[in-house]
């Protein structure tokens, strides 16, 4: 069933000229938005880099955990030899102070960890938030009150402190998985609140009443009538959550409770860099610029999604 006109925040079918589906309209708007294209290009670049990590490191010939003591100066406590953190034709972005590991290889492998964790955590938050928000909004009554209270509660936790504390007391296990669930746990209420609000406005719309009148099952109404109309705001919010999670993962790794060595992540590289930034600024600039670019790219894309999905047009 085609989605009828939505609330003001949702997809843009209201202004759609005849014969164009709302999603195609959005696609067209995105293609004409330079910011969206730039964001998409940067994301594609980093994703490709992460996927092709073994290939790229084969190309330059240094694994991410290969030590190169000849590249560092023992007399200077392990500072890289040469200018700009030891950049040369062999080590494209220099070497890690203290160990002499190749910064380029660690950055490429770090992209895998940073992107994987933040996207997975966003996935967890989005699924949980959508399911619970939908349930709260559609069921109403006590269920709504209960779920809403839980959301308020989770939101009033000092999140970073609790994330640090939780990760630090969790039993030794797959740290990446733990990070995904801890970050997802603190992230779902944000999406949950938006979904609940949207569901409340949709619940009594004519097309839902019509579906109800035809005797459609409640679950079917939720999945076939309500959920498709929530996709737009959820998509926007999920895209804007990814950069936040990239930052959080980096922050946790930076504070020493993120991924464990020898895995590398950008945040972990930053945290190593703090001991060296006065001697070797190149070493903190590399992961810093990676973080800056990915966060910027996802924010640009998220903003572009929001503008494109806004039925009032992209003029805001």
């Amino acid at each position, binding site marked *: 069933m085609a989605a009828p006109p939505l609330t003001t925040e949702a997809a843009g079918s209201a202004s759609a000229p005849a014969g164009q589906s709302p999603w195609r309209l959005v696609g067209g708007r995105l293609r004409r938005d330079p910011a969206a294209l730039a964001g998409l290009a940067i994301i594609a670049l980093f994703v490709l880099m992460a996927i092709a990590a073994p290939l790229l490191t084969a190309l330059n010939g240094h694994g991410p955990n290969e030590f190169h003591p000849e590249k560092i100066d023992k007399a200077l406590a392990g500072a890289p030899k040469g200018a700009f953190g030891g950049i040369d034709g062999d080590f494209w972005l220099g070497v890690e102070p203290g160990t002499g590991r190749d910064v380029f290889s660690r950055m490429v492998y770090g992209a895998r960890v940073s992107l994987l964790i933040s996207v997975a955590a966003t996935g967890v938050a989005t699924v949980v938030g959508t399911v619970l928000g939908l349930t709260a909004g559609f069921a109403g009554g006590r269920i709504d009150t209960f779920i809403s209270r839980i959301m308020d509660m989770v939101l009033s936790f000092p999140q970073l*402190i609790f994330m*640090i504390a939780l990760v630090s007391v969790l039993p030794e296990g797959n740290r990446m998985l733990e990070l995904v669930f801890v970050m997802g746990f603190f992230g779902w209420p944000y999406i949950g609140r938006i979904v609940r609000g949207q569901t409340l406005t949709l619940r009594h719309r004519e097309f839902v009443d019509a579906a109800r009148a035809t005797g459609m099952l409640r679950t079917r109404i939720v999945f076939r009538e309500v959920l498709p109309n929530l996709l737009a705001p959820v998509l926007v919010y999920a895209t804007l959550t990814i950069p936040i999670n990239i930052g959080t993962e980096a922050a946790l790794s930076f504070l020493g409770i993120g991924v464990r060595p020898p895995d590398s992540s950008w945040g972990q590289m930053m945290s190593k860099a703090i001991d060296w930034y006065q001697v070797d600024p190149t070493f903190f600039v590399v992961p810093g610029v990676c973080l800056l670019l990915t966060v910027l790219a996802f924010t640009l894309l998220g903003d572009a999604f929001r503008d494109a999905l806004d039925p009032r047009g992209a003029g805001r």
Partner: protein
Amino acid sequence: MIRYLALRFAGLAGVLLVICAVTFTIFYVFPADPALQACGKSCTPERLAMLHHQMGLDRPLWQQFTDYLVGIFAGRSYGSGPLAVQCHFPCLGFSYQNNMPVWDLMMQRLPTTVSIGVGAALLWLVGGVTVGVVSALRKDSLLDRTMMVGTLTSASLPIYFTAMALTVVVVQIGGLLPYSSYVPIAEDPIGWTKNLILPWVALALLYAAMYARLSRASMVETMAEPYIRTARAKGLPERTVVTKHGLRAGLTPVLTVFGMDLGALLGGAVITESVFGLPGLGQLTIDSINKSDQPVVMGVALLAAFFITFANLVVDLLYAAIDPQVRYA
């Protein structure tokens, strides 16, 4: 109004109670025996048993929890007989590391965190809102576009990156400021400012960008409202239209976010403090977590949660003062 206030305070207490219970569960149930950690390397079974008793760990969990709660409001004593240790109001227990009362430890660190948070907040509020409002009034101009690209970039900068870059440029190369450390304001106000400028700027760059975007969006929406047109039509000067009619409605959403951000920051600017090496609540948290000093972590978590929920309450009350549409029965 009184009924509303009472309800809100009850809500605040409820939230804190739940946070207290969750923290208690996380820190007292999951990790290894805290008495064993407090006991040290040369631990005998007798000494361990005594410590268990002293710390109240031999009692049922729910009783430990109620003891903890009662201690916060009325103080309590640990252990019994001649070994009893008195812990005065507000008792959050003693640090496992140095046996200091948790409350005193936190109060030692609070001024640093407040100095960082309030200074940065003023900076980002003024800077962010100015940029946002100017952008909104000159919507789609070159200035607007430049500022919005700038804020987007600045919002994407990780704080530790900004911090390190600022230190390298301003301190190491420029030699304009000292490396950050904390000097109490009462001792040396100029030194206090000099030492805190970099943390303020680093934090403010991040937050101001978000505020600029938020206030721009909100102002653009407000300035398109019919009552703004009415105000213009009745001949008010544009300055009055903007300041009296526009800002008041346009900046209300900013207030909500500001309260929450400042509240969260007062609980410890964890990353900023650790990059600049400032001894605030955030540093205390990290140190305590690394050393499994549960009473301190729990104390900080509670204090931080209190700041967040309290800030929310204050914001909601201020709302009523600013926006006549929101009046509480």
